[in-house]
């Protein structure tokens, strides 16, 4: 496929606001997980919480934690100014907005249910569904904030949501519906995911340790990430989306295929689309959530495609699992690895599970990195692998 130029990007998460905070933390090995102190949650776990959202009120109907995080993200790295230039260049109607989220602003509805009228059961009058909880609210907020008028859609395929947006945007551009796209994802802490994953016994009491013999589950994080995609011109230099691969497990609603069938298909499709052998890939940024079954399945898939020598690591030990924002978070981490020529260690992983065979990096390596595969696999067996490289 024709590569898409990733001409700008920004990232905000528990490591800090803007790209520099993430880059510094990744290179220095400073994680950002903390013992759970979100709202009145009493679960014994660690979380990747973004500071300052409680005070960051938005003075309109969009006000909720997810959009506060989205706004904080859009304010970093001159991203909004860059998008203004893109808008001027292509026209507001020719720039699409493609956002991924798994829970949107559901925290707003959770709180409304806690404050129901004791007699009628009604939600408080100030409750807003359309601009907070609805899946499209995030895309609506971003599109209005950036003053764009092109096609727009929210993708919600659980933990692959903000990887799938790259594929969707590519297709809209190819079909002539827009000339450039803002892709991204935002997911924020809420009770639904904390207590929901806890009910599935997938929450770790400790900082997550992907691929470790003692791994015991995920930590939930929150993040906002955005990128600009444009058709690459000959003079463009920088990071590009070389290809994407999508598949469905067709196996189980919340457990990955034990042999990694869907993951293999997603990675192979990405390589096929790029007409590239697996041996060209320098580094794999794993989905690597830290649950026993996820890591075992992905290990089978990654070693099937790449063998046991290609360096791999997961960055969930820094950010936790940011769910619907994991795809964009790790695509941007992958871009940073290429731009700054390093491959991060799998933070918190101490003793790799001897039944797993992928080449897990226990130390950060500084060396030329040209091609990175980034994996995102979600509930319902929704898989998406992105292949990033240089222009």
């Amino acid at each position, binding site marked *: 496929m024709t590569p898409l130029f990733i001409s700008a990007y920004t990232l905000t998460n528990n490591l800090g606001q803007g790209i520099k905070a993430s880059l510094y933390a990744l290179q220095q090995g400073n994680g950002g997980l903390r013992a759970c102190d979100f709202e009145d949650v009493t679960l014994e776990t660690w979380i990747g919480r973004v500071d300052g959202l409680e005070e960051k009120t938005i003075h309109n109907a969009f006000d909720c934690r997810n959009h506060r995080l989205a706004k904080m993200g859009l304010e970093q790295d001159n991203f909004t100014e860059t998008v203004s230039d893109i808008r001027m260049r292509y026209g507001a109607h020719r720039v699409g907005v493609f956002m991924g989220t798994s829970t949107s602003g559901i925290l707003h509805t959770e709180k409304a249910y806690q404050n129901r009228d004791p007699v009628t059961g009604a939600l408080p009058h100030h409750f807003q569904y359309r601009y907070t909880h609805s899946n499209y609210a995030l895309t609506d907020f971003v599109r209005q904030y950036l003053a764009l008028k092109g096609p727009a859609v929210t993708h919600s395929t659980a933990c692959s949501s903000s990887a799938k947006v790259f594929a969707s945007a590519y297709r809209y551009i190819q079909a002539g519906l827009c000339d450039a796209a803002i892709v991204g994802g935002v997911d924020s802490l809420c009770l639904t995911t904390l207590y929901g*994953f806890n009910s599935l016994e997938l929450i770790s009491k400790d900082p997550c340790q992907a691929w470790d013999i003692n791994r015991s589950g995920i930590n939930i994080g929150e993040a906002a990430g955005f990128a600009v995609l444009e058709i690459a011109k000959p003079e463009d230099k920088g990071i590009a989306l070389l290809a994407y691969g999508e598949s469905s497990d067709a196996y189980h609603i919340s457990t990955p295929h034990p042999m990694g069938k869907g993951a293999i298909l997603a990675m192979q499709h990405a390589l096929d689309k790029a007409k590239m052998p697996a041996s060209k890939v320098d580094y794999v940024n794993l989905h690597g959530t830290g649950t026993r079954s996820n890591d075992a399945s992905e290990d089978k898939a990654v070693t099937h495609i790449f063998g046991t020598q290609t360096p791999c690591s997961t960055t969930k030990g820094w950010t936790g699992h940011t769910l619907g924002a994991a795809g964009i978070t790790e695509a941007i981490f992958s871009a940073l690895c290429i731009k700054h020529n390093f491959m991060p260690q799998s933070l918190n992983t101490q003793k790799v599970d001897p039944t797993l065979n992928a080449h897990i990096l226990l130390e950060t390596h500084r060396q030329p990195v040209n091609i990175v595969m980034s994996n995102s696999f979600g509930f319902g067996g929704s898989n998406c692998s992105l292949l990033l490289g240089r222009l």
Partner: protein
Amino acid sequence: MELYLNTIALAAPGLLGWLHSIPILTGLTSYQVTDMPAFSPKLLPPNLRRRTTQTIKLALQVAQEATEQSTLPIQQLSTVFASDAGNTEVIDNICHTLSLPNRPVSPTYFHNSVHNAPAGYWAIASQSTLPSLSISAYDASFAAGLLEASTLAVVEKIPVLLVCYDNPFPAPLAKHRDFYAPFAVALLFTPTQQIESGTKIILELKEGGKDTQMTEDTLERLRISNPAARSLPFLQKIAQKVTGNVIIPYLEDSKLWIKVHNT
């Protein structure tokens, strides 16, 4: 963008099944609101079906009916599931549970809460490992689903099953987002003409145009209340077997123009 519509399935009060709905949409017989049956899509194994919800069954019912009319093997279909609110009864249940002491969220409800739960169950039932998208665009969810399905079919050159559905919220959320009645439609598209195929459609995004409306009052109320029912004028044009344009609302500043070529 050009593509071909192969088969249609429909489920709404008084519109149960495509063949049954044709004379109603063409005005030959009058529209009568009826109760919705409890759907039980047989393609899904019973042990899985039991763990789903009315919303998931509604979506899978039309998916199954659309594919039963086609000769295309179901494991060779990619899918787009478009819905504003997704699994409305699960969202209500979880938010209610989270307001109780100890917050005893059910693991089954939690995994059914993801927006792509119908897509996940459909993949298991159909054994299709092809790409599947689950999207939302509030009131524009049908138009957005059609664009997503079309770009997937045309750019990837694969058949695409579009399932667009929204099921009313239980109280108290219904007061804040009223879908009026359940509505689900499934449309099976191919990028090129199939032997069984009848209808070529051409899609174009434009800034202007007046939404095509339904003349029957209850159908018009359904059209403006449920995002999936925004498909009704398009379905009517197909049922009438005439060539012409249908204008579907997209985002606030644009419309989706659909040119239907009936032969």
